[in-house]
Structure formats: C-alpha cells, structure tokens
C-alpha cells in the first residue's frame, strides 16, 4: 500500500536519470540537445507528480520550448566545428567521474540524515497561492527580474552582433 505511489515516481526518476546520462555522454551534440529537451519534459512530469502544475507548464513552455530551440540554433550555427567531434581525455574522464561520484555521495549522506518528511496532500489553490506570493510578497524581486531580462537581452545583442554592423 505504501509503496504504490512510489511506482510512477520510480518510472519518472529512472527515465530522467537515463535521459540525463545520455545528455552528458552522447557524442553528437545535436543528440545531446534533443536528450536535454526530453529530460526537461520528464522533469515537467515530476512537477506534475508534485502537484505543481503551473511550474510544469512554465517548464515546458520556457525550457523545453525556448531553451531547447535556442540550443539547437547555436549548435547548428557552429555545426562546422561540432561535426568533427572533440575527443574526451580518458584520464580527465576518470577524474571527473571520481569528483561527481564524491559529490553525489556527500549529498546522499546529508539527505539520508534528514528527518523524513512528505509532500503536502493536494491543495486546490496552489497556483493562487503562488500568484499571491509573486504579486504581494515578492513584488520587488519580480520587477527587478524584468529589468534583468531587458539587460540580458541588450547584453546578448551587444556581445553577439557583427563588429561592423
């Protein structure tokens, strides 16, 4: 009975980790980007399972839609160089595996020492609560965020435009 809700979570989690593994190991960068898009969509599934539907929608729209398309553009713009694959160094690979495994072990040790807690049962108005948070408590950071986005846009145009334009 108590393990029954774990089944969809285990399916999502294994799909997510498999996709993430493909992102970091795939030889062709275009495949990597497509695996990343799939990873982000599966992450939206995890958000749905956490009953955070609004964040799942934002994730699909902004990440799987926007970021994946931008990445594909960048990969194809630089395609002539990525077509010839840049090799990994095997010594570097072993050391990287050691470093990331030790980070994972450290995080796991901390997480397993945490007292057990559970996600809240369904609230009807989770998105309403979120909207109140944004427009009442976090109104100033919200506005600052829009300034940041304008600055980012201008900065990206300045960096990436042609010199003689």
């Amino acid at each position: 009975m108590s393990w029954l809700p774990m089944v969809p979570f285990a399916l999502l989690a294994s799909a997510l980790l498999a996709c993430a593994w493909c992102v970091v190991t795939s030889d062709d960068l275009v495949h990597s980007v497509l695996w990343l898009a799939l990873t982000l969509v599966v992450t939206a599934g995890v958000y749905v399972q956490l009953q955070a539907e609004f964040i799942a929608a934002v994730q699909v729209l902004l990440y799987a839609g926007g970021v994946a398309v931008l990445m594909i553009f960048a990969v194809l713009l630089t395609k002539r160089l990525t077509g010839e694959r840049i090799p990994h160094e095997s010594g570097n690979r072993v050391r990287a595996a050691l470093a990331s495994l030790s980070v994972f072990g450290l995080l796991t040790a901390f997480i397993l020492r945490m007292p057990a807690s559970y996600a809240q049962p369904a609230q009807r108005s989770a998105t309403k609560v979120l909207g109140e948070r944004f427009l009442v408590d976090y109104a100033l950071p919200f506005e600052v965020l829009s300034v940041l986005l304008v600055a980012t846009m201008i900065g990206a145009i300045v960096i990436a435009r042609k010199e003689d334009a």
Partner: protein
Amino acid sequence: MVPVSSYMLLAAGMFSMGLYGVLTRKNVLGILLSVELMANAVNVNLVAIGRSLGDGRGEAFALFAIALTVAEVVVGLAIVIFLHRSRRSIDVDQAASMHG
C-alpha cells in the same frame, strides 16, 4: 506519499551527472548543456521542498530560478557565438586567452 528525500536523491543524481558533463566536455556548448542539467536538478529540489512546506515559497523560488537560468543561457549562447566568430573554435582549451 513519496517522501521528499527521494526527490532530493533524484536531484542529487541529476546534479552529479551534470557535474560529470561539465568536467568532461571540451565543447562550450556541451558544458552549457550540462550546466542546464545542474540548474534543472536544483529546481526539482526547490519545488519538492516547497511542496513539503506548502506555502508557495519554494515554487516562487523555483520560478525565479527558471527565469534566471534562461537569462544565463541567452548570455552563454551569445558568448559561444562570439567565440565561434572571433577564433573559429568552441573548444574550451583554446579559449583560455579570453580573460583579461
């Protein structure tokens, strides 16, 4: 219910894979993809803990984090395009002279 710690373990696994990617890729775009993976893992953590707090703070932080990550990706891609145009290579080992 699925305990929050299992979501955190999932996020830790995804974060470590992203770290592995950052350390092994020699292509700037590959590194950027791996950084995306790490940011995504952090968002899973924020949403899971936010749900267990139940007052919308975690989700609000996750939304801010998503917006910031998108801004970071845009600037990162602009730098990649600039590198590609200025030195015809997006291998990080050859971009070591970008500082200063």
